[in-house]
């Protein structure tokens, strides 16, 4: 019994616990609200929608977080053992029903609110007139293929892959003659771009922070996604699906350029092949 008694009466432990929880909530909130470490600003409308949904989620979870942690801090301090008798209660059905319903409405409602932006990216096809680019992940590089003037990709396959031909173009196919393969993803400003993701070896993950765009590239599948970039500049592309020893070095650059500059860039890339 001595053990129980020794922890009785002293307010130091509950006070310390409460103070820690309050500080913890304070510091966490500070970092989130002041956005000390934060994602970069989005470069398109889709990114802004994702951010809006993030903000909604943050507000709701933030309120629950603060109330729960501070509630915990309060009860451990307020109801520390002071030698009295605890309240005898097996619970309260109305309260159970209330917070079950509240949690359900809040969480499921939040989920529904976020479906629109998801649907936009995945349910809808890329708008007509989108620039088509094929993205190939390969241990440990990204390659990008433009269909050229004819708008069609030439045939390709693993059997044609070599150092000089990283995406495995079949040089017998005339449609492939004007294909351009680059190590940088150049896109024109303000035009919709349709990417087709694929891989010749293992699973890779295509991720551009500023586009709020992430999608795995799986061998054996061709996965389409689309986006539009509205701010010119260079943005990093990284791999987000473990692909082997140099996973952390699998990096490329997304270059968003005004259309005339883009055309010039693409012509240069073609010429240097």
């Amino acid at each position: 019994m001595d053990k129980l008694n020794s922890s009785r009466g002293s307010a130091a432990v509950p006070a310390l616990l409460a103070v820690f929880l309050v500080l913890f909530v304070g510091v966490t909130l500070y970092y989130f609200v002041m956005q000390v470490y934060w994602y970069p600003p989005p470069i398109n409308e889709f990114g802004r929608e994702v951010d809006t949904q993030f903000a909604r989620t943050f507000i709701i979870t933030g309120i629950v977080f603060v109330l729960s942690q501070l509630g915990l801090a309060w009860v451990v301090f307020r109801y520390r053992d002071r030698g009295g008798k605890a309240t005898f209660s097996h619970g309260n059905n109305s309260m159970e029903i209330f917070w079950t319903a509240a949690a359900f409405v809040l969480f499921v409602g939040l989920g529904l609110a976020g479906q629109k932006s998801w649907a936009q990216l995945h349910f809808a096809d890329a708008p007509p007139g989108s620039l088509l680019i094929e993205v190939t992940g390969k241990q440990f590089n990204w390659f990008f293929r433009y269909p050229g003037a004819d708008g069609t990709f030439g045939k390709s396959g693993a059997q044609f892959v070599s150092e000089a031909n990283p995406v495995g173009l079949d040089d017998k196919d005339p449609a492939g003659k004007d294909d351009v393969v680059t190590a940088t993803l150049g896109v024109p400003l303000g035009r919709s771009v349709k990417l087709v993701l694929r891989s010749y070896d293992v699973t890779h993950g295509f991720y551009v922070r500023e586009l709020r765009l992430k999608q795995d590239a799986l061998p054996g599948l061709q996965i389409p996604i689309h986006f539009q970039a509205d701010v010119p500049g260079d943005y990093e592309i990284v791999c987000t699906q473990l692909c082997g020893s140099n996973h952390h070095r699998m990096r490329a650059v997304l270059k968003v350029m005004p259309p005339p500059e883009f055309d010039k860039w693409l012509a240069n890339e073609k010429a240097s092949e």
Partner: protein
Amino acid sequence: MSTHAVGATHHAPPEGFIWKYIFSKDHKVIGIQYLLLALFSVFVGMGLSVYMRIHLAWPGMKVPLFGGDFTPEKYLMLMTMHGTIMVFMVLTTAPQAGFGNYFLPIQIGAADMAFPTLNMLSFWTTFLSLMVLLAAFFVEGGAPISGWTAYSPLSALGSITGPGQGLGQTLWIFSIAIFSAASLMGAINFITTTIDLRARGLTMMRLPLTVWAWFVTAILSLLAFGVLLAAGILLLLDRVAGTSFFIPGGLIVSGVLQTKHTGGSPLLWQHLFWFFGHPEVYIAILPGMGVASHVLATFSRKPVFGYRAMVYAICGIGFLGFMVWGHHMFLSGMSPYTGFAFSMMTMAIGVPSAIKTFNWLGTLWGGQIRFTCAMLFAIGFVSLFVSGGLSGLFLAQPAVDLQLHNTYFVVAHFHLIMGVAAIFGMFTGTYYWFSKMFGRSMNETLGKWHFWITFPGVYFIFMPMHFLGLVGDPRRYADMTAVEFLKPLQPVHNFITYAVFVTVAGQLIFLFNFIWSLRAGKKVTDMNPWRATTLEWTIPSPPPFDNFAGHEPVVYRGPYEYSVPGHTEDFVPQHLDPAQVGKI
């Protein structure tokens, strides 16, 4: 019933060291064996993470490892083995097979598990699985690098995809398959015991919440591990028999054209794996919820608030747990409609989790809280469960997950909720039951030091990871030097590594306390030092071979009758005859 009415209650105490302590069929010895296995594994797993953190903080530093420099693939080996050891050998064994084995039969008034021999077999199979897993470190090429999720084709094509993907990965698959078999045996035992061997009067709605948690966890294991076993066999066949379940055609790896395979589906592996993998998360955390509820009631001297709601929440989490596996795969190329369904299911699983949280607060509310070490860790569990659970609401939505998937935000989320919270559940159980198991109590002062280092420590480690994730730092990166936007994050990684050092030091205090208390802890004379109500506190510490010494306990009431008005004592044990209650 005849003399050979076998099983459960009729085996005689064994003779000799080997049968008493090694190949024992006594659930208490097996429980301790599991706990020791987990204790060993958790320190191995933690050691690996320390190595990883050192490399992440100082990528250029020459840290010797396996006779050579620290290369990126060594980082991935450590990461894979850290994850596998922690998830399987620690989070699945200790809370369920360890504490569950020891206390489930006692809390339901049984003399042993339903199938003691199966129980022994289950432990030794688990042990074999651990040995096979650790052997992967010592084979050519070393341990696998494909992570604990072993996504195909990285895991399926052999050493051509990277070092460790040869024999190391094969051993990994064997280990997981063996582990699945062991877990299935354990699950059958737990469920049968709970259903058939409860004491008289112990109805399902009078079970301690610990028992409910172990029971539902066992059901999850029973339904999930068979699927993992099947997936493991398919993957193994792809590797050794040249089949193409998970390997598509037309691959070229390290310049070598793959001609053996056609048409397999990497997504199929992901579906099978996560069908197991998500319930596995609940297998890890549910027992912690049970122990936390149990201890919160004991030390706030109050009945659990909303006992029935707690039971339904456990069942609800278990049930929904089987319908949300797809949320790990939003960005894997699955149909967006499926993604939508998985997302809504996942948001819905937040509801029973919220019920549990509010009921824990309700239990504390109006109590007379006694801050023992067990109680501190139980309170810490609630805090961690909230912190780790809420970030799940971000990841459950495909649109938000776009940004956060496979970043450190996910690492923070699952470490808090299924790693650290579950381990806090284990610490709670250890401080609470140590004296019952070993007849000596742990040192409470050292225990408080342990708590005050660990609780802030884990938050210092894992909260900053949310921010790394927000910036976009991908997980499973051996270092952050190759990507421009990751370079400014280096100080955060260094901070985390320092926090790891301090927290690990705290765990050494625990280890010391544990070992020291085994030999020199204060002997307990009182069967019921916490003034608790459930059956384990009605028998000596440590309990005799058949727990109740031939006596069959009878249960008269629910498990958490604390501070009942009109009684001098502030607790009314489950077994106390109603005729005697008034006389206290």
